[in-house]
């Protein structure tokens, strides 16, 4: 069975950061997560930093408003974004969770809520959601909202937005929807430290769900912690609590196989600090640049930056056409849905590790603007 578990780990790894168009999978680059998973006491993949349970209200399949944070308060909550016409990932996740929940004792079952947020509100009518989810487990909750609403929730969770690019104009009922393929598990304290990518099996759910229901946390994980992205407006008095607060770390899908740009929105705490280096295990080297504007005689060019000073309480933005980070010599070219770990080295605050989501270029500006506005900019 040892070998069997190794195979399973392979499958799990392959799906760990999967961004799926239901059949379209991304690469396998979650080695660190898998190592962590093997020692965490859980078979889910460790989320670092933990995600805070988002506070949003959508409409449930009965047509009633459903406040996610309030309605699931005190319960272990499994949150999944999918759609009912999905041919593979969604029905598998939902069926596997339902099959395992059915076998759990009542107390454990009662401690767990499964919430399904539709990424395809056009076809997922309330009736369709209710019928589809009810076919797996009548206790499952189905929510729907506009694509924009759901994308905003996804953004707060550091997950890629809904991809409707495969929706054809000619035959609108036959299309795939790209969406994140992992189930997020929120503990009773409101933080998600574990996620379950495609490839997780019933055996793994049967191992983890009773532990989650008992309130156990993964070994070595902090009891709680801030996520890398938080859209809630931050009060001035909160600033010193976290020396450097990263509101967004985004990478548009690189146009070349060798290098790509990275954009950030971050806010400094009470003391002046200097960002003096950037590193990423996904790239051979990283450097900071500022795009200098051209004029009628010369084209714009990139000027290397040795460091960037952040004044006390300053919000610093690395944006397209301005200051930005370049990652060079990719080991594997990142694609939409991937997550690229990046280490930001500050003189005073030390190293801050962020996970940059790879998104479509068209989404970058909107997401950076949203992140900046969350910091009151």
């Amino acid at each position, binding site marked *: 069975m040892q*070998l*069997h578990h190794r*195979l*399973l780990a392979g*499958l799990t790894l392959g799906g760990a950061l999967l961004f799926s168009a239901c*059949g379209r*999978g991304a690469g396998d680059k979650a080695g660190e997560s898998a190592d962590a998973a093997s020692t965490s006491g859980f078979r889910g993949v460790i989320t670092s930093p933990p995600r805070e349970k988002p506070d949003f209200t959508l409409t449930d399949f009965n047509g009633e408003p459903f406040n996610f944070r309030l309605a699931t308060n005190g319960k272990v909550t499994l949150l999944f974004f999918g759609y009912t016409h999905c*041919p*593979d990932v969604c*029905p*598998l996740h939902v*069926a*596997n969770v339902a*099959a*395992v929940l059915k*076998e759990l004792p009542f107390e454990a079952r009662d401690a767990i809520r499964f919430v399904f947020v539709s990424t395809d509100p056009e076809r997922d009518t309330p009736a369709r959601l209710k019928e589809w989810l009810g076919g797996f487990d009548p206790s499952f909750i189905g929510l729907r909202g506009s694509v924009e609403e759901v994308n905003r929730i996804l953004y707060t969770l550091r997950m890629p937005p809904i991809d409707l690019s495969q929706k054809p104009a000619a035959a609108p009922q036959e299309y795939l929807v790209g969406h994140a393929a992992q189930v997020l598990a929120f503990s009773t304290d409101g933080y998600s430290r574990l996620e379950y990518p*495609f*490839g997780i*099996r*019933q*055996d793994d759910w*049967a191992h983890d769900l009773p532990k989650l229901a008992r309130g156990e946390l993964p070994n070595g994980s902090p009891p709680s912690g801030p996520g890398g992205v938080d859209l809630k407006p931050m009060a001035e008095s909160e600033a010193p609590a976290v020396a450097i607060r990263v509101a967004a770390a985004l990478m548009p899908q690189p146009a070349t196989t060798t290098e790509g740009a990275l954009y950030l929105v971050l806010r400094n705490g009470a003391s002046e600090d200097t960002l003096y280096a950037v590193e990423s295990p996904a790239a051979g080297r990283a450097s900071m640049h500022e795009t200098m504007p051209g004029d009628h005689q010369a084209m714009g060019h990139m000027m290397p930056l040795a460091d960037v000073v952040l004044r006390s309480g300053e919000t610093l933005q690395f944006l397209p056409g301005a200051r930005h980070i370049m990652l060079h010599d990719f080991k594997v070219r990142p694609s939409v849905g991937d997550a690229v770990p990046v280490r930001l080295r500050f003189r005073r605050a030390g190293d801050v590790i962020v996970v940059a989501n790879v998104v479509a270029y068209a989404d970058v500006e909107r997401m950076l603007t949203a992140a900046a506005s969350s910091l009151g900019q």
Partner: protein
Amino acid sequence: MQFWCKAEATAWTWGWTAYVGVWGFIVLLVLAVVAWNRSAARRAGEAPAPLHPLFAVGVLILWLALDWPIGPLGASHLASVHMLQFLLIGLVAPPLLLRGISPAAQATIASSAIMQQVTSPLFALAIFNVTVLVTHLPFVADALMPSQLGSMAIDLAWLVTGCFFWWPIVVPVPVRAKFPPPLRMLYLIGGLMFSPIMFGLAGFLAYSETPMYGWYELAPPLPGISSRDDHQAAGALMSIGGALVAFIGLSVIFFNWSKTEG
């Protein structure tokens, strides 16, 4: 178009796919048996005997089990269909295919020391059951099924060891004085009807709390069929199908024995 069916993580559709490796294998099998029978007849100075009709039935069953839709459904989506494939390829087709080998050809092959060894009841029983066990271990099946060669290896292993298993029952050479009909019936009962390997695997499939095979559990689902139901159906098929095939074999042996005794 593909060479052989393999496990694929794509949703099932009823769109036909050509499996040229399967067709080629079936054609080669028929040509090989025909050529072998003719060559053996020539060497024995006899006229070539026509192929036994049961051989054609065996070829048809083998083709059905390997080709679309049973092949891809069994390779990618349903453990129960994979088990049906096992029954057809490893248990049903071999005795029928062996009937296609003419007595002259049987004599030539039976004179080989290696064939005498591998078709001896004990060896055949052992190699067949070990193959059944190994090819149904989850980590073996999950590792081999996603490749065309791996999937083909499993299918051919079932067919070849199935032929070894059935040889002492179906083929009268080499003459084994110590393997009379009652012992043949015991061989079928112990090796098939109440085989601890088959019963054990069937039990695990039917009663395991979670699905055994990762590929079938994580395959794009077919509407209305849960992976657990599918695995339970596979267990039931293995147990009931194996017993049914053994029962038919026992009946044939018994009635043939009655005729010769009577």
